[in-house]
């Protein structure tokens, strides 16, 4: 397998990774972006982005395409749908091996693996994915026109999408594990005011029933143990995200929630390795905060590379 040398390798092509690539490439540093999925990351899951400063309204996928084009216009190479088969970060020279592409080396690696939608992890959830269970209201809402459906979750996504799904469904039952919501108060108010929405709280989801298609969600009340069976043909799952940090070397320190620990300059505890975006331990996760992370990491990485060169390393 051929080996190619870069100044910096960015692992992940969401807004954090692509922003880092834009800044690095514009600083005339040889930059490679390796993305194991489609560039854009979780932005691709956002139908409409209305709060990105300077852009009146766009789609998440559209914003990702523009960011990628910007990075490439400055000279960055982007490999998407990549299969990383080897990752070595501990030495002064880092190695990233990508199936069918080659081995890539660089003194700097910026980790931007992002997050993935959290699933319930039930066997029956996988069985009914695409046959009643969905993770995207804008994609699949119209399949459930005139039907009774459930939304699982209690954050902003769950409540906003529940309201949105009432455009199609006859009724929407929100199943949530707590007796209160993590969503903003205005989102809760809007959902509570919608006559098509009802709430079943303090529930642990136990399974999904059906034959070829989903026919019911089952759950149990967390305090009383009462079993609940709700007949629905659709269930939309919005229970947050998990960081995609599995497979990172043990030298990359993670929190108990499997998020990467960095300092304010986005440095990990391994020299030359930075971490940015949703997989980094931090409070707020927005496109804007991801862009900020990517900018800071790239600016500091450029300084770090300059220092290495001055020292002749």
């Amino acid at each position: 397998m051929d080996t190619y040398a870069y100044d910096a390798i960015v692992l992940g092509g969401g807004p954090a990774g692509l922003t880092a690539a834009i800044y690095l490439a514009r600083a005339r540093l040889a930059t490679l972006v390796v993305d194991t999925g489609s560039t854009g990351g979780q932005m691709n899951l956002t139908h409409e982005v209305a709060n990105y400063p300077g852009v009146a309204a766009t789609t998440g996928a559209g914003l990702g395409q523009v960011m990628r084009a910007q990075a490439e216009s400055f000279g960055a190479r982007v490999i998407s749908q990549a299969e990383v088969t080897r990752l070595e970060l501990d030495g002064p020279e880092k190695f990233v091996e990508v199936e069918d592409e080659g081995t890539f080396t660089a003194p700097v690696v910026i980790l931007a693996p992002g997050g993935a939608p959290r699933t319930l992890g039930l066997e029956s959830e996988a069985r009914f994915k695409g046959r009643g269970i969905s993770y995207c209201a804008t994609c699949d809402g119209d399949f459930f026109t005139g039907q009774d459906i459930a939304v699982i979750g209690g954050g902003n996504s769950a409540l906003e999408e529940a309201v949105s799904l009432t455009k199609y469904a006859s009724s929407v039952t929100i199943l949530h594990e707590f007796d209160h919501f993590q969503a903003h108060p205005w989102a809760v108010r809007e959902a509570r005011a919608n006559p098509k929405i009802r709430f079943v709280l303090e529930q642990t989801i136990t399974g999904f029933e059906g034959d070829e298609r989903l026919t019911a969600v089952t759950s149990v009340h967390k305090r009383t143990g009462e079993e609940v069976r709700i007949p629905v043909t659709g269930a939309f799952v919005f229970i947050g995200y998990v960081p995609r940090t599995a497979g990172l070397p043990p030298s990359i320190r993670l929190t108990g929630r499997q998020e990467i620990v960095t300092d304010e300059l986005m440095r990990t505890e391994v020299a030359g390795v930075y971490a940015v975006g949703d997989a980094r331990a931090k409070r707020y996760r927005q496109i804007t905060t991801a862009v900020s992370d990517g900018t800071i990491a790239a600016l500091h990485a450029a300084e770090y590379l300059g220092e290495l060169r001055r020292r002749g390393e």
Partner: protein
Amino acid sequence: MLITKLEHIESTKKYQELVESGRKLAVVCGRMGPMCIPVYDVMDSLKAKYPDVTFLDMEFDAPVAAETIRRLPETRSFSGLPFTVYYRDGKVVAATSSIQTKQQVKEILDAKLKA
């Protein structure tokens, strides 16, 4: 309109010709939505690795989809975009609903469409 790097199936006549040719086909039927775009990308990335498979797409809301893939018995229970249908020797050999990873697609290609 689909903006992808895949060849589009835009008419029922073309669909029938492709299926009746007996070629190995992977057809993604979807929209330009968050669950569909990654699957188009996955298919595009696999073209070189599976040169004997023809990777195609089809607009879910176009008449061709209503007349073909959306009427298949294999997709009758589907309610998640995209619908992805694999053909060999003129027959459906696999079909999936909703987003799929590259690994999941490769597993189907290896199991159902490998020589």
